[in-house]
Structures are given as C-alpha cells and as structure tokens.
C-alpha cells in the first residue's frame, strides 16, 4: 500500500514557490504534505496532494518539470519512541530510507504521519504491516 507523491523541479530564485503553489491552487489541488530538498541552485519540492495526476498535468501545462513516484505514508502514534520503532523495523529488514518528512495528516486523534521514500516499497510495506503499522492508501489521502 503506497501513496503517490508529486515532485517538482524548482530553480532557486524568487517567485518559483509562488508559481508552483499558484498553479496547484488554480487547479483546485489541496496540499496534504510538503517538503523541499535544496542545493545552492535548485530544489526539489515533494508534495502529497489529493489528486496527483491532475496536479502533474496542471504543472506540466505550465512548463514545470513534475513527476510522480510511489512513497509510503505510515501512521505513527504521537508519543516518544514510535518513529524509532518504525526506523528499527526498516533497518532490521535492511531497507534504506532515501528521504522522509512529516505530513499534515492526522486521520485519527493522537497520531502523526510520516512520508517515506525507501529503496524498496514492497519490502517496506510488508515489514511495516507485519510490525503492526498502519499505512495510508491513495483513497485515504483523497478522503482526508
């Protein structure tokens, strides 16, 4: 069970984030989670939205470079040690995390949501499910 993540290439100059978010706003896209990885000259904006395909189309139409990839959205209890437990589960199965960030997604009270990009989605989904973690699906994201 994975969710789609939107990635957008943004040059490191004033106005670019404004342009990306404006394009999403005009397409009626709701942003669920966002993170930016940056270098001196450019950044990659990673976004979880309610409709990834529509978002990619809207951005491409405006000449942005956008793509989608499958990532894992895992629910963690909002208490000390829950993120460590998730990391340990992945580490035990020798799964590498390329990057991760927190999402503004709280489907239930007292939980937090992490977005994980790993080297093997299949292995991670199995490991986390077996460890009793709750993963979000595309439908879950669209509903929130």
């Amino acid at each position: 069970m994975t969710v789609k993540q939107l990635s957008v290439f943004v040059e490191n100059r004033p106005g670019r984030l404004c342009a990306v978010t404006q394009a999403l706003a005009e397409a009626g896209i709701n942003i669920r989670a966002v993170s930016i990885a940056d270098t001196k000259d450019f950044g990659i904006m990673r976004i979880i939205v309610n409709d990834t395909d529509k978002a990619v189309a809207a951005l491409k139409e405006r000449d942005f470079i956008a793509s989608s990839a499958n990532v894992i959205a895992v629910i963690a209890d909002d208490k000390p040690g829950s993120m460590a437990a998730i990391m340990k589960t992945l580490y035990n199965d020798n799964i590498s995390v390329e990057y991760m960030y927190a999402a503004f997604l709280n489907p239930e009270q007292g939980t937090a949501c992490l977005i994980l990009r790993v080297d093997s989605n299949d292995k991670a989904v199995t490991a986390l499910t077996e460890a009793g973690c709750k993963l979000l699906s595309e439908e879950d994201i669209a509903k929130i």
Partner: protein
Amino acid sequence: MSKRYWNEKIECMDRDEMRALQSERLVKQVKHVWDNVPYYRKKMEEKGVTPDDIKGIEDLHKLPFLSKADLREGYPYGLLAKPLSECVRIQSTSGTTGKRVVAFYTQNDVDMWEDCVARAITAAGGTKDDICQVAYGYGLFTGGAGLHGGSHKVGCLTLPMSSGNTERQIQFMIDLGATILCCTPSYAAYIGETLHEMGYTPDDIKLKAGIFGAEPWTEEMRKQIEESLGIKAYDIYGLTETSGPGVAFECEEQHGMHINEDNFIAEIIDPDTGETLPDGSKGELVFTSITKEAFPLLRYRTRDICVLSRGKCSCGRTLVKMSKPMGRSDDMLIIKGVNVFPSQIETVLLKDFNATPNYQIVVDRVGNSDTFEIKVELSPDMFSDTIRDVSALERKLSADIVQILGIKAKISLVEPKSIPRSEGKAVRVIDKRKLV
C-alpha cells in the same frame, strides 16, 4: 639607446618594394602548395585556377579560401606540404577535441616565427640586456613556445615560467629583476593584483614592458595593467594556423598592430560574399602565409572582424596595421583564452541528455577573469525526485565540458522555457564582457 627595429629593412620597407616581395613569394608559395598539398590543389581545380593564373599579389583574390572546416577535414596531415622528416615541431590550438588544429613547422618555419616575435619584443623596447619572463602556458599552446623562441632570438635572458603559481612568478620577478612580462592580459592583470596583495608596489619590480595576447582585451584593461605593474603594455596577435603569436604586434604608438607582411598577406573580406574589401573597411581578416614551408595556408579565414590601415605610423614602420579584433564572423567565443564553439557544448549535451535541450552560455568578466556559465533546461526524462540523481547529472555535464573544452563551466540546471527566446529561437550566447 635601444634598437628600434629588429629588422629595419623589412619593417620600414617602401610599399612598392614590399608588394613586389609579397608577389614574388606568393607566386612561389602557390606553386609549392599546388605541388605538395593535394587537398588545396583540388580546391584550386574546382575553382578553375592553376599556379599560372597567379602572377602576383593582384591575383590573390582568384585563390579559394581555407577555413577551420578544411583543417578539420584535413586533420591531421591533409594540409601538410613537407614530408614529416623535414618537420621539427607540432603545435596545437587550445585544448579542444572536436575543433583541434594541429600545425607543423620546419626549422625554417620556427625561425621565421621566432623572427616575427623578436620584432614584437624589440618594438616593446626589448634588447639582449632584458630579462624576459614568459608566463604563457608552455606545451602545445603557441603562446609559451612563441614568446620563448622570440625572447631567445633577441638574446634576452629568458625565464620560462609558464603560467600559474603567481606568488612564485612575483618572487622570481623581484629576485631576478625581470624587465619584460609575456602572458595573457587577464593573467597580467591577476599578477598585478597579486603583487599588491603581497604588499609590493611597482617600485619593487623592474618590469618596464609587457607583451600580452591570445585573448581580447580593452583599453581600460591596458590602463589598469600598466598602472598596477608600472609598465607599458603591448598587444600581440597570432593564431596557431598561421604560426602563433607574432603575426602582428603593437609598436610604441600602442594603436593597432603591425602585420608582418613579408610573411603574411592580410586581406579584409566581406564575410558573407567573400569579396575583398578596400583598406579601411571593416570585415573578416584573411591571411596567406607566403613563407611557411610545412603548413602554408593560403587565404585562411580567421573569422576575426577588424580593419586594416596603411596610414603612416609615427614609429616609422610601414607594415600595415590591423585594429584589435572587434568581433567574430562565426560564433566562436574566447573564454579564459580558450576557443569555445557553442556546437561543442551541444555535443556534450547531446551525449549526456540523449537530446539537445535548450541551453544558454553566459560569459561575463568579474575583475579581470572570465566567468563561464552554461544554463541547461532540464527535461522531464532527466528529472528524478532525488537531489542525488539531479546533482549527479550536473556533475557529469561539468566533467564532460572540462574534458571537451579544457576549461570549467558552472552548470546551472534551469526550468523548462526559462531561457528567453527571441522570435521563438533561444538566445544561445550572452556575452556580458565589454571587450571592444
């Protein structure tokens, strides 16, 4: 009193006498090329010209042109006019793979070249009593070899420093009392800056003159170099295809460069029609080597745009003068002294991107050094959601550019359609340097 001319007979020769000398040498040279360079002979045959049609300099226009494309086609031996056993030297243009020019020299060719450089050094006030610091790069590049040879010919004590290691350059300059500096103008400016940063002033060095070439420079830069080093700065012009630096040189007037016409016939042509233009017109400079043995190029198109003038020069030389090149009739750029063609960058992009993305070359001059940036529009195929992959692409492009051009460029990946287009066509080169 220092000697004013290296070869007074030639440098101050009466115009008619010079024309007669050029005619005589041209006729002989055309025959030499016809007999020994099948490539050019074919070009002449295609134009319906034989050596019999060339009776003097007035017939020069009948000969076909040679261009860099011919040199590429003939690479490496296609334009060679002497057996390799008669050749003693090879020099080559700066760094590049796709557009390399390899030139061959017999001992007579080397002597002629060094004689031309000796005239330049003498015109800059150099004599056998001088200490000449050669800070041009040594190697295949003609800068180091040319000035080194000329310095020997004049009898200067020659310091073969090559370029780089600036603090050591200055230490030697001070300790050994160098009086003449030869390098690129941007390096001269940098040496000047470093001298002051090290806490010295021009009073601490004995330099009196500098001979600077291989890249375009302005009058402002001349003033700056002259002040920072306390010298007179002279321009020198040349290209590997004709021999190297010393094809033309500045005299004490510092206004235009005298062309060594006894070896090189200069013409100005309309770059579009190929028609010869009268003296004083602005156009493309074309050279015919009339004394070179191994690599005698006839009517070689330099692509440099300039003006020839035959007005009387206060230095007494009668050799025709060329202005500083005012631009190019092709798209070649000279960046950090290296010849760069946009097509070379396209080759790299094509290789690394599997397609030619939109790109733009941005050249500027900060202080006295060139900056070189290549902006490349990222394509969806090359995009990944990890910084690692995108940065790896950037690094690969950067490494491949160094490989092809020999100089580093800053690679900037930019968003699609962010490079401005005029009439739908992307603007490939933005040169912000004010060099003319």
